C-alpha cells in the first residue's frame, strides 16, 4: 500500500484504536473481531467496509497489520466524509476528520474524538458537536466491552459529533471538557465521560499500553451491569461499572446525567464519581468521603473496622444484601476493615446505588485502592477474581490485575492529560496514600504466603571434612592414605605432609616400618598389595587434620596416588624383570639420601643392573624429600620381586626396602627403621655372603637413613617422636590444619586411629616380608652353594 501520512492527532487516534483492537497485545496485528466491530461502529454500509478492508490489504493478508489498520481507518474517515474510496484518497484527501465510530468501540475511539468535541461543546450540550450516535443500539452491541459500550453509545450520540468536530483536539482538552461537563448537574456524567475518555485518551496519547489497559479496564467492567442498566441508566446514571472503564461510557453517563438531572449535585457527582471511568470519584466527592472517613476514623491512614463501617453504611438504608455486596467489592484486601481508599470506594458505591446505579460485579478500576498497593497487597489477582467479579468471571480477574498495572501505566499518562486526569491522578495520589494503608493491610492478607528461603549450607564444613576423614579411616586401608594424602595436598606445607604421608606409605610399603607400633625388621615388602594397603594406612596416620574442603579432591588424589602405588606394585609384581625399570620412573625420588646411598652401596656390590637401577631410584627418591618413600618401597619391592631370583637383588631389595621404610618413616619410624634396617642389614649381611659390601651397606644405611630421616623429618619433626608425634608435627607444620580445635582433635584422633591401623598392617607386612626375606636368603645360600659347586666344573 502506498505510504500513509498521518497527522499527529490522527497518529494518536489510530494508534490508540490499534491498541484497542490489539487485544492480544501483539502490537502487530489488530484482532479481526475488534476491527470488524470498529468498522461496524463506523456506521458505514457493509459493502463499504468490505471495500475498505480490501483496499487496505487486510483481505489480502488475512489479518490487520498496523499499516493495514491505519489505512483502513483512514479509509473509514474518507468514507465517512463522503469521499469515494480510493487507494489514492488516503493521502490525497486532506484535513480528513478522524474516523467516527459509533459502536462501543467506536465510542472509545469516538470518545477521544467526542471528548474532543465535547470539549468544544462543553457545558452540557454534547449533542452540539457530536451527531447523535447512530445507534444507541449500536451501543448495545457492546461489541467491545459490554454495557459500558452501550453507555457509550448513548454518549456517543453526543460524542460522534465531537470527533468530527475536533479531531485535532488534543486529548487533554477533552478531559477538560469532560470535567466541565461533570461540573454540571449532568456533569456527573461528564465527569464520567471524562473518566471514560480520559483513560481512553491517555492511552491514545501515550503508549498503547494505556489503551490496552483501558481496554482491559473496560473488559473488566463490562460484565455485570446488564445492559438494561445502561438503558435504564440513560435516565439514571448507567451502571457506571461499565462506564468506568470506558470513556465512552462515561460520556454516556454524562449524557444520561444531563438527562437525568440528578437530584443533588452531590449525588450526581457521587454517581458520576462512582463510576470511575464511569466510577470515577470526583474531587468533591472524594473530599466528602474523606471527611466522612474522618468522622469515623480520625487517622486517615488508619482503618475503619468492619463493625463501624457496617453501622455507617447501614444508615444509608440500603438493603443489607447490597451493603454486603458493596463491602465485598470494596474491601479489597479482605481484612475486614476499610482503608481510606476502600472506604471511598464503598461510599461511592453506596452513592451510586442510592442513585439507582446497579452495583458492579467487580470493583471498578477507578475505585480500586491504589493500583500500586493492590499489587502489593497480594490478592490482587485473587480478590478481583473472587470478590465481585462474578459478573465477568473470565474478564474480571485478568482484567483487574492487568488493568491495574496498566492503570498504573495509564496514570502517569492520565496525569499528563487533562484535569480529569488530574482528578484521576489525584485519586491516584490519594490512593498512594492509601497505598500506605494498603501496605498496612496487606500483611493481613491471608492469601499472601511469603516463604522466606532458608539458607542451606552447601559448602563443606569441617565437620564434613572430618566425616570424610573418618570415612577414609573407617574404610579400609586405602582410606587412611587418601585422607592423608589429601591432607598433604591441602596443607600448605605439602612437602611435609607428603613426606609424612610418604613416610606412612613408605612404612606400609616398608613392611611395617611406617607403622609406628611395629617396625619389623623386614623392610622387604613383598606383599605389594599389602604394601599398598599399608601405604594407604601409612598415609592415613599422617593426615591428622586434612585441610577441609580441598581435601575432598585430595582424597581422590590420595587414592589415586595410592592406586598408583598399587599400580606400581602390581607392575612390579607383574614385571619381575622389568618392574624395576618401570619403577624407577614411577617412584619419585626418595627424600632420604642416606637410603639411596645405602642401596647404592649395595647395588654396586651386587653389580646388578637392576640393582643399580634400584639404587638409582632410591637416589632419585631421596632427592625428593617428600616423595613417598613409598615409591622407594615400590621400587624396592619391584626390585625385590624382580630380584627375588637374584641373590643380589635380594640383597638390594633387602636394602632398599630397608631403606625405604626408613625413609618415609618419621623420626621415630626412622629410628625404628634404622633399627630394623640394622636388623635387616644384619640379617642380610650374613645372608649375603657374596656381598661383602652388604655388611657395609647396612651400617651406612641406618646411618644414612637416620640422617635422611632426620633431615627429612626435621622439618616435620617438631614434636614427633611417635606416630602421634609425627602426626602432631605434621599438624603443627601444617598451618592450615587447625581450622578448628575440635576439628583438629577429631582429625588427629582419626589420624591416630588410622595410623594405628596402618601400624598394625605394616607390622604384619613387616613380619611377612621378613619371613620372605629369610626365605630368599636361604635360597640365596643354596644358590650360592650350587654356584660354588658348579664353579669348579666351570673352571674345568
Amino acid at each position, binding site marked *: 500500500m502506498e505510504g500513509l501520512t498521518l497527522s499527529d492527532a490522527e497518529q494518536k487516534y489510530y494508534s490508540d484504536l490499534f491498541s484497542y483492537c490489539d487485544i492480544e497485545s501483539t502490537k502487530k496485528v489488530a484482532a479481526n473481531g475488534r476491527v470488524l466491530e470498529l468498522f461496524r461502529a463506523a456506521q458505514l454500509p457493509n459493502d463499504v467496509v468490505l471495500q475498505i478492508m480490501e483496499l487496505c490489504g487486510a483481505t489480502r493478508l488475512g489479518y490487520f497489520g498496523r499499516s493495514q489498520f491505519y489505512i483502513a481507518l483512514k479509509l473509514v474517515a474518507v468514507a465517512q466524509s463522503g469521499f469515494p474510496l480510493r487507494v489514492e484518497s488516503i493521502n490525497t484527501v486532506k484535513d480528513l476528520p478522524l474516523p467516527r465510530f459509533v459502536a462501543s468501540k467506536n465510542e472509545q475511539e469516538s470518545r477521544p474524538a467526542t471528548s474532543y468535541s465535547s470539549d468544544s461543546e462543553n457545558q452540557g450540550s454534547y449533542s452540539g458537536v457530536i451527531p447523535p450516535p447512530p445507534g444507541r443500539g449500536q451501543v448495545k452491541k457492546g461489541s467491545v466491552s459490554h454495557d459500558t459500550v452501550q453507555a457509550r453509545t448513548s454518549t456517543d450520540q453526543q460524542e460522534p459529533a465531537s470527533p468530527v468536530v475536533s479531531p485535532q483536539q488534543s486529548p487533554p482538552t477533552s478531559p477538560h471538557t469532560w470535567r466541565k461537563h461533570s461540573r454540571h448537574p449532568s456533569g456527573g456524567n461528564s465527569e464520567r465521560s471524562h473518566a471514560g475518555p480520559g483513560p481512553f485518551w491517555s492511552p491514545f496519547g501515550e503508549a498503547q499500553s494505556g489503551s490496552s489497559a483501558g481496554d482491559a479496564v473496560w473488559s473488566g467492567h463490562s460484565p455485570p451491569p446488564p445492559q438494561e442498566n445502561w438503558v435504564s441508566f440513560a435516565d439514571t446514571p448507567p451502571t457506571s461499572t461499565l462506564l468506568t472503564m470506558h470513556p465512552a461510557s462515561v460520556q454516556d453517563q454524562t449524557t444520561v446525567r444531563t438527562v437525568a438531572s440528578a437530584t443533588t449535585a452531590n449525588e450526581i457527582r457521587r454517581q458520576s464519581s462512582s463510576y470511575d471511568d464511569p466510577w470515577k470519584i470526583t474531587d468533591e466527592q472524594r473530599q466528602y468521603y474523606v471527611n466522612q472517613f474522618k468522622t469515623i476514623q480520625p487517622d486517615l491512614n488508619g482503618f475503619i473496622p*468492619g463493625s463501624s463501617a*457496617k453501622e455507617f453504611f447501614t444508615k444509608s438504608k440500603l438493603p443489607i444484601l447490597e451493603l*454486603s455486596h458493596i463491602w*465485598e467489592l470494596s*474491601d479489597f484486601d479482605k481484612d*475486614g476493615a476499610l482503608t481510606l481508599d476502600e472506604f471511598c470506594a464503598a461510599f461511592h458505591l453506596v452513592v451510586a446505588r442510592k442513585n439507582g446505579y446497579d452495583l458492579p460485579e467487580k470493583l471498578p478500576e477507578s475505585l480500586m485502592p491504589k493500583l500500586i498497593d493492590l499489587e502489593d497487597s497480594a490478592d490482587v489477582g485473587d480478590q478481583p477474581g*473472587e470478590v*465481585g467479579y*462474578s459478573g465477568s468471571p473470565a474478564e474480571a480477574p485478568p482484567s483487574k490485575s492487568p488493568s491495574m498495572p496498566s492503570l498504573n501505566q495509564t496514570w502517569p499518562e492520565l496525569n499528563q492529560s487533562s484535569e480529569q486526569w488530574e482528578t484521576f491522578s489525584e485519586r491516584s495520589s490519594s490512593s498512594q496514600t492509601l497505598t500506605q494503608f494498603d501496605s498496612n493491610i496487606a500483611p493481613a492478607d*491471608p492469601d499472601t504466603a511469603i516463604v522466606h528461603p532458608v539458607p542451606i549450607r552447601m559448602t563443606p564444613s569441617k565437620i564434613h571434612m572430618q566425616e570424610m576423614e573418618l570415612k577414609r579411616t573407617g574404610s579400609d586401608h586405602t582410606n587412611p592414605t587418601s585422607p592423608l594424602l589429601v591432607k598433604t595436598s591441602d596443607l600448605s606445607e605439602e612437602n611435609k605432609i607428603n613426606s609424612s604421608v610418604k613416610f606412612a606409605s613408605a612404612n606400609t610399603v616398608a613392611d611395617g616400618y611406617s607403622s609406628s607400633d611395629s617396625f619389623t625388621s623386614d623392610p622387604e615388602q613383598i606383599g605389594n598389595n599389602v604394601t599398598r594397603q599399608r601405604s594407604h594406612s601409612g598415609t592415613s596416620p599422617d593426615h591428622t587434620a586434612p585441610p577441609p574442603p580441598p581435601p575432598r579432591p585430595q582424597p581422590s588424589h590420595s587414592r589415586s596416588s595410592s592406586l598408583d602405588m598399587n599400580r606400581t606394585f602390581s607392575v612390579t609384581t607383574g614385571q619381575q624383570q622389568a618392574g624395576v625399570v618401570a619403577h624407577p620412573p614411577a617412584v619419585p625420588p626418595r627424600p632420604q639420601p642416606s637410603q639411596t646411598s645405602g642401596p647404592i652401596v649395595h647395588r654396586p656390590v651386587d653389580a646388578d643392573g637392576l640393582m643399580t637401577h634400584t639404587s638409582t631410584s632410591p637416589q632419585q627418591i631421596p632427592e625428593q624429600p617428600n616423595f613417598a618413600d613409598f615409591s622407594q618401597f615400590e621400587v624396592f619391592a619391584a626390585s625385590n620381586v624382580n630380584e627375588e631370583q637374584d641373590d643380589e637383588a635380594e640383597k638390594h631389595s633387602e636394602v632398599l626396602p630397608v631403606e625405604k621404610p626408613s625413609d618415609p618413616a618419621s623420626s621415630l619410624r626412622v629410628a625404628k627403621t634404622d633399627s630394623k634396617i640394622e636388623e635387616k642389614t644384619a640379617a642380610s649381611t650374613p645372608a649375603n655372603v657374596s656381598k661383602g659390601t652388604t655388611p657395609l651397606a647396612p651400617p651406612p644405611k641406618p646411618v644414612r637413613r637416620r640422617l635422611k630421616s632426620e633431615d627429612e623429618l626435621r622439618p616435620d619433626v617438631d614434636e614427633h617422636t611417635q606416630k602421634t608425634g609425627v602426626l602432631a608435627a605434621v599438624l603443627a607444620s601444617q598451618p592450615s590444619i587447625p581450622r578448628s580445635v575440635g576439628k583438629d582433635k577429631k582429625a588427629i584422633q582419626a589420624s591416630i586411629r588410622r595410623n594405628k591401623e596402618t601400624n598394625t598392617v605394616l607390622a604384619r607386612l613387616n613380619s611377612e616380608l621378613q619371613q620372605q626375606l629369610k626365605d630368599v636368603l636361604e635360597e640365596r645360600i643354596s644358590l650360592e652353594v650350587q654356584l660354588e659347586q658348579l664353579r669348579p666344573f666351570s673352571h674345568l
Partner: protein
Amino acid sequence: MAVCVAVIAKENYPLYIRSVPTESELKFHYMVHTSLDVVDEKISAMGKALVDQRELYLGLLYPTEDYKVYGYVTNSKVKFVMVVDSSNTALRDNEIRSMFRKLHNSYTDVMCNPFYNPGDRIQSRAFDSMVTTMMIQVC
C-alpha cells in the same frame, strides 16, 4: 468439578447449598444430609486428638455408585461437603483439597464482611462466583 457444593453450619443446617441444575437436586441435598453423619463420625473419631491436630480435610466420606462425597470441616465446625461425579476421571485428592481450600478462603471472606451475620445464608456474589468456577459446567 463438583456437582454439588454445600456449606453446613455448626448446628448442621445449611448455610449454602448449590447443585448443578440436573434433574434431581433433591437427591444431592439428601446425599449431603446423610453425609453429615459421616462427618460427625469422623470428627468424633479424631476428636480424641486435639482439634489442632485434626486435619481439616476429611477426605472421601462415602462413595456411591455414581457419586463420591468429600468432606471438610473447619475449626469452627463449619462443614463443607462436596459431591463429585464418579464418572469424572477421578479427581485427584490434591485437587479436591485445593477446591476445599478455595471454599474455605471464600467462606472466610464472607465471614469478614461485617454485613454478614454468622448463621445467615450465604448470599455473597463473590462466593457464588467462586463456587461456579468449581461446579461442573452444565449448560
